[in-house]
């Protein structure tokens, strides 16, 4: 048995057995009797109107139950607000099957429901749809002049707009000894979790539904469904115990949820709707962004002038934003800054948070610019960052809650062997391969938002904790179980964490690396309340040894309470339960972060990535042969699952730098590589030595756990570190992603 505390132990995933034996059931795998299959039909035009949908041939097929279109869908909620969700940006949320209007290519326009999957798929392929097409625009680069300020809304709370200009950027930049001016571009990317989006809705009768959905927020989907279909929230239960990856794509309810619930309610039967891989490109994506940076430094390498402009894509119906330009000045304390962020509405679906949204976009530009500036000044890139190290956040004029970034640089460089780097370009070789070393800084804001949790001491003297939160593969089940175990000093096997069910206490959507912080805090606060209750019950026992004891006099350990002054004096939980009427002891608690305290600090996780690339000089082929990421993210609850999160982020960084891109054809206004054969994510053969360091960091501000979250931070620094390593190896600075190998010949 592993000793207490459980926090800090490298526990293997508790759901591991279910996942390696195939018993873990995902949303599209609940095969109930009488299940119907829905298949979605998507628009083949980009903008215009449907003039006719002929469903007669499809309906004639035996086994086809119904075809839903905008013409025969049930009457639904009226107001935009009712279609909103916890992650909705300002604007009008997309409403599936609302009317004949086509807003983007691939928009869902019909749902065919049939008795088998194959029948539904076939019938979906024979609908005859006529359109009236209108002209459209989908190309961000060609439409940058249409950039405008984003609308402000609820989302702005978590995604602040850029701060106002400071000092005199133009003057200082002009006076700088070294200047770098560069444009950075990255295209559209799609989340592409391995699991296809799917919803199985079980119709329970009387306006009641049980929904198995692929989502990052059970409650988010419950509220959405309740609002749109006019159902009592109590009659909508959303269950998602296993989620086959999401990376942001499940932060908002997606249209298969709407389709499945609509059909189940209308047909009063169980209906499953699974999207195909092609359809996975018809909702949400990382928006293409064009950034212009101008950094100026003095002869000592001090960056005095920073201008960072970003122009990003959004849809015509919502203003999706990311925090991009703000980071320049949080990281590097220049006194003269100009930070601007604009949106260009185009005829596409609304962009959607995708792993490290904004941060990975910003870091590519900022950290490449810093590398270029260091090169101009002939200063080592690590040294250059130390010269410009921000001991406080000058943009907001407040301290950091903790910031061990300096240690990330030092320990990362040491482990990597950065000192062996020859600063000269094209100077390092292995056979006919050019070798490049590159590094970059990463950052990710640490957020905490309110959540509830329930903690129950069961009749068996065990702990049961519940939250509606999902586990999208991040290790939530394991980590929450560890946190809960320490609350009562129990071994893991005596703790059960129930999750992934909207019936359980409220949890927000799972994203932004805030789950441990948010749900973990809720569990801690429920645990604290439960301890209080247990002690109260223990005091009430006959001849209780704790009659005069308070919290400080006792310990929760070995399945009971002991007296600190004499640990041999002990009462087991089972005895307490037995003495108090053999009833469970239960608490439900809301944890609300202390916003007034928190806003006095800038709270962020930091990282430094060090990368070696090997480039075939003649052919240009690139391998990231090794990489080290040093992370300062506060207290690490589970070093095993946290390491995997960082490794995953690093692989995403390699992918972003070298492989993945959604290819658009703006003549048609559509994406062209909507599959996993041509949307390249790395294969095993692309991934080499990856190493992770967790730098010790104490943070007493960020939350009670002192933990900052590790979902995004592993990704942020990787792409610029790779681009910088490629520059070091070849002398070529390529400022658009992904970098194709043929650009190096």
């Amino acid at each position, binding site marked *: 048995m592993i000793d207490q505390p459980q926090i800090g132990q490298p526990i293997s995933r508790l759901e591991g057995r279910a996942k*390696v034996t195939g018993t873990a059931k995902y949303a599209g795998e609940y095969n109930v009797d009488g299940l119907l299959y829905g298949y979605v039909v998507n628009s083949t035009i980009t903008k215009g109107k449907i003039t006719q949908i002929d469903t007669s041939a499809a309906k004639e097929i035996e086994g086809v139950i119904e075809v839903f279109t905008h013409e025969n869908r049930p009457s639904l909620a009226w107001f935009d607000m009712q279609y909103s969700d916890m992650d909705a940006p300002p604007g009008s949320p997309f409403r599936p099957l609302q009317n004949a209007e086509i807003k983007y290519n691939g928009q869902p326009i019909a749902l065919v429901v049939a008795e088998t999957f*194959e029948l539904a798929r076939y019938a979906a392929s024979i609908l005859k749809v006529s359109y009236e097409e209108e002209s459209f625009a989908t190309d961000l680069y060609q439409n940058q002049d249409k950039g405008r300020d984003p609308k402000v809304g609820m989302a702005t709370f978590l995604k602040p707009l850029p701060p106002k200009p400071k000092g005199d950027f133009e003057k200082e930049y002009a006076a700088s000894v070294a200047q770098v001016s560069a444009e950075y571009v990255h295209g559209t990317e799609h989340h592409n979790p391995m699991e296809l989006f799917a919803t199985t809705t079980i119709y329970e009768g009387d306006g009641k539904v049980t929904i198995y959905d692929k989502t990052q927020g059970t409650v988010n989907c419950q509220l959405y469904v309740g609002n749109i279909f006019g159902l009592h929230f109590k009659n909508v239960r959303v269950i998602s115990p296993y989620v086959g990856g999401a990376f942001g794509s499940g932060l908002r309810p997606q249209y298969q949820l709407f389709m499945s619930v609509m059909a189940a309610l209308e047909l009063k039967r169980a209906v499953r709707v699974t999207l195909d891989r092609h359809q996975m490109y018809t909702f949400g994506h990382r928006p293409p962004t064009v950034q212009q940076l101008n950094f100026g430094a003095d002869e000592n390498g001090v960056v005095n002038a920073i201008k960072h402009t970003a122009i990003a894509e959004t849809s015509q119906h919502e203003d999706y934003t990311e925090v991009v330009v703000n980071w320049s000045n949080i990281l590097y304390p220049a006194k003269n800054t100009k930070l601007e962020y604009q949106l260009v509405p185009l005829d596409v679906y609304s962009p959607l948070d995708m792993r490290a949204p904004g941060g990975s976009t910003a870091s590519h530009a900022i950290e490449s610019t810093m590398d270029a500036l260091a090169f101009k000044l002939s200063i080592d890139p690590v040294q250059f960052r130390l010269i410009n190290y921000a001991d406080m956040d000058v943009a907001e004029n407040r301290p950091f809650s903790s910031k061990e970034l300096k240690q990330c640089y030092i320990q990362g460089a040491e482990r990597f062997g950065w000192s062996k780097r020859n600063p000269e370009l094209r100077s390092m070789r292995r056979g006919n391969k050019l070798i490049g070393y590159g590094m970059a800084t990463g950052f990710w804001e640490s957020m905490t938002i309110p959540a509830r949790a329930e903690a129950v001491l069961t009749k068996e003297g065990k702990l049961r904790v519940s939250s509606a939160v999902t586990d999208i593969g991040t290790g939530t089940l394991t980590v929450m179980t560890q946190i809960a175990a320490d609350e009562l000093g129990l071994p893991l096997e005596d703790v059960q964490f129930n999750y992934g069910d909207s019936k359980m206490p409220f949890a927000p959507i799972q994203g932004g690396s805030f789950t441990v912080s948010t749900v973990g805090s809720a569990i801690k606060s429920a645990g604290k309340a439960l301890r209080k209750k247990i002690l109260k019950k223990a005091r009430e026992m006959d001849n209780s040894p704790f009659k005069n004891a308070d919290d400080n006099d006792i310990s929760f350990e070995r399945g009971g309470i002991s007296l600190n002054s004499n640990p041999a004096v002990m009462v087991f939980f089972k005895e307490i339960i037995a003495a108090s009427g053999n009833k469970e002891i239960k608490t439900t608690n809301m944890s609300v972060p202390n916003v007034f305290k928190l806003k006095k600090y800038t709270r962020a996780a930091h990282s430094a990535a060090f990368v070696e690339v090997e480039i075939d000089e003649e052919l240009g082929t690139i391998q990231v042969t090794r990489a080290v990421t040093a992370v300062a993210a506060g207290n690490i609850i589970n070093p095993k699952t946290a390491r*995997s999160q960082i490794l995953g982020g690093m692989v995403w960084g390699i992918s972003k730098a070298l492989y993945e891109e959604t290819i658009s054809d703006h003549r048609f206004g559509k994406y062209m590589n909507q599959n996993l054969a041509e949307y390249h994510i790395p294969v095993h053969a692309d991934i080499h*030595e990856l190493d992770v360091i967790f730098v010790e960091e104490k943070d007493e501000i960020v939350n009670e756990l002192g933990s900052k979250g590790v979902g995004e931070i592993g990704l942020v620094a990787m792409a610029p570190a790779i681009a910088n390593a490629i520059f070091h190896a070849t002398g070529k600075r390529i400022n658009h992603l992904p970098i194709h190998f043929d650009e190096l010949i």
Partner: protein
Amino acid sequence: METITNHPKSARNVLQPRVLSLRVNGAPKILEVSPWVSLLDGLREYLDLTGTKKGCDHGQCGACTVICDGKRILSCLTLAVMKNGSEITTIEGISNGAELHPLQKAFIEHDAFQCGYCTPGQICSAIGMIEENKAHTRTEVKDSMSGNLCRCGANTNIIDAIMEVKEAKNHE
């Protein structure tokens, strides 16, 4: 033996169902399906063996990998009718009762998955690869396993787990 079918009676003529007999995870199965049912959908929707995953349905991700007559194949790119008489092993049939297969244990120990959706395919593919005995070095194993994508980025842990089992087997 019970014949497993989910065909609506009304659509029988359209669907031309066929009766197939397969051995799945060691047990004989009689399956009634139309020709257009893929082996993958046959397993998932008809036999309720949902451990085999659908990630792309087009042979681009490897999540649907099963072992068919001793070889790793993609169940999405073949039809159930084409496998009449075959012996199929899916992730549900890998362990020896409650005793996990060494690869299953190694995957847990090395944290070789996060969301778990590519995992059944990775494990079935690795079993097939070890059986083929053509990939020996880490570089060769990575190439031979490249038909199985992992979006969580568990790549290094997956290969670590496989190498450990492979090396243990070599020392047997």
